[in-house]
């Protein structure tokens, strides 16, 4: 059993038939940083709140460090929560906000003072301890919320979309900061986000969810390079998905007949012939100019984004996204006839 173990967790809200979270089973190791990732309504926040105890699971069990806490009320779970809207107490100043959890634990005044200072120094807000909450910027408020959750030395840190109310630049900084603090303290962390970049950047493992069920659990690399299915492939990063017929497969490589592109090869872990879907990321696509009678399609749009150039290529009814490094290849014009292909190791057969 893992440090934080969730078994067969189900949440069905009264008056709804479909469960919001279904058969959720996951083990999280001590010190691990796990992201719950998925579109809104996928059940990730509900899952987090069941771990926190704010929502009661319809069925299933939660164990922390070997002890069952499925029915333990929120205030006895000792977990640190950071909310999307920070939920700082507006009538208390920064230091009193951070001290709140310690006061509830009846920590001695002297020790509380020391720990509050430590926690505020950790999030680099030591100089603002006397400020009122509404005098703080969004990023500072988020840091106070983090300090308030960490000061109680929680068994688990639960972060509910903590970055989504910050502007893009601050979001990246805070993301790094949260991750480095988490590493420093070695605290087990569950992070809910709908932002795949965020999840890829900070997580030890990612749990991709959709419609209440787990689609895939894996390291960021596994999720990105070997998505388990079409949903994960589409949700994580940009993806081209091709319909293909596997004509021959052996030693992990399939020979394919791809609609519109002809004979190509792809990595194949399944080893079954027949119809299949092939995933190729836009930056792994190869595109080259071709004579009109020899071409697969035509360039529909060309977008220059600095580091790279993005093409949309029309192939039959479908549009294929291609991203090529600016300057590395010859630049294609709108309307150009092109051929598309890929290296075998850059394409993956999905079930």
């Amino acid at each position, binding site marked *: 059993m893992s440090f934080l173990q969730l078994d067969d967790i189900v949440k069905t809200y009264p008056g709804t038939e479909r469960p919001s979270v279904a058969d959720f089973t996951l083990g999280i190791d001590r010190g691990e940083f796990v992201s719950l990732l998925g579109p809104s309504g996928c059940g990730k926040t509900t899952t987090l709140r069941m771990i*926190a105890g*704010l929502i009661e699971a319809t069925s299933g069990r939660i164990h922390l460090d070997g002890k069952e806490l499925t029915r333990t*009320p*929120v*205030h*006895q*779970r*000792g*977990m*640190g*929560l950071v*909310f999307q*809207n920070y*939920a*700082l*107490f*507006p*009538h*208390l100043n920064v230091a009193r906000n951070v001290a*709140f*959890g310690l006061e*509830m*634990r009846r920590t001695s005044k002297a020790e509380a003072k020391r720990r509050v200072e430590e926690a505020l120094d950790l999030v680099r807000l030591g100089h603002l301890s006397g400020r009122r909450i509404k005098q703080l910027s969004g990023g500072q408020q988020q840091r106070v919320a983090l300090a*308030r*959750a960490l000061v*109680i030395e929680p068994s688990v840190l639960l972060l509910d979309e903590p970055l989504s109310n910050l502007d893009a630049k601050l979001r990246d900084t805070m993301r790094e900061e949260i991750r480095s603090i988490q590493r420093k303290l070695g605290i087990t962390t569950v992070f809910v986000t709908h932002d795949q970049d965020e999840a890829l950047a900070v997580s030890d493992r990612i749990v991709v969810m959709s419609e209440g069920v787990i689609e895939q659990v894996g390291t960021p690399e596994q999720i990105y390079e070997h998505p388990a299915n079409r949903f994960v492939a589409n949700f994580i990063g940009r993806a081209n998905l091709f319909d293909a017929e596997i004509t021959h497969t052996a030693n992990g490589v399939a020979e394919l007949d791809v609609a519109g592109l002809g004979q190509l090869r792809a990595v194949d872990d399944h080893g079954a012939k027949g119809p299949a879907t092939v995933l190729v990321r836009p930056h792994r696509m190869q595109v080259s100019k071709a004579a009109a009678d020899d071409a697969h399609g035509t360039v529909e749009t060309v977008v220059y984004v600095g580091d790279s150039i993005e093409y949309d290529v029309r192939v039959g009814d479908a549009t294929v996204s291609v991203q090529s490094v600016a300057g590395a290849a010859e630049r294609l014009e709108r309307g150009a006839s092109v051929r598309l292909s890929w290296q075998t190791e850059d394409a993956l057969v999905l079930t």
Partner: protein
Amino acid sequence: MSAKTRSARLTVLGLTVPGLLGLAVSFVLPLAWLLRMSFNRGDSTGFIEETFTLDSYAQFVGDSYYWDMAWETTLLGLGVTVLTILVSYPIALFLVRTESRFKGILVALAVAPLLTSSVVRTYGWLVLLGNQGVVNQALMGAGLVDQPLALINNRLGVYIALVEIMMPYMILCLLAGFGRFNPELEHAAQSLGANRWRTFWRIVWPLSMPGVLTGALLVFVLTISSFVTPRLVGGGKVFYLATEIYDQATATLNWPFAAAIAFILLALFAVVIVIYQRALRRIEAQ
């Protein structure tokens, strides 16, 4: 001064003057006239002597009967205010927290009594609380009491009726005052180890203070100035400053004395408003 600021000033002037004029004519002038009246000499024949004397005030201050009345009035104001907070707070908290789709209707229902005149509601209470009223009938029917309880024509009835009449005002103030409140704050407090009790006293109650204070001020002022309910439910047997003003003005016809009491009541308002402002400033300074 640039033309722009001058025109801005003219706009401000143009917008405020009508209101100020209205206030002057309908409030300040009558008040001034009333103040002047309180310095005249009157007697129970209705005769008013134009003079400048503090006789009416002296009469009030010199008579323990009126001190008692002022004390009972203050007590009524405080009592009704506290009781109204106690019964309104749970309702307001429920209305703030509920995620029911009928929330709008529930809020409307809670304040709907405001649509009815307090005279009508007072008569309603007379019907309910009288010797033959629903409450006494039910109590006797259940065998809990042998004789009807005296629920009207006394102070108890006045308290009961006024609390109910004041509830919609209090609920409205509390709802408005809960503006800074967010259910997530309760979750945050709980996650930090606070049980329900401490979550309430440390988070919910302090955050609702502005609403509680505003509601308390409004209810206190409305209560000590209310006349119809104490008069009807009190059955002419209990006396407060507001009923006394009416009696002095219409029955005794001693207008100067009535005016003097009115100004003493006004002084009570002033004290309460100063307390309110102080308390509010202290909360906001946190």
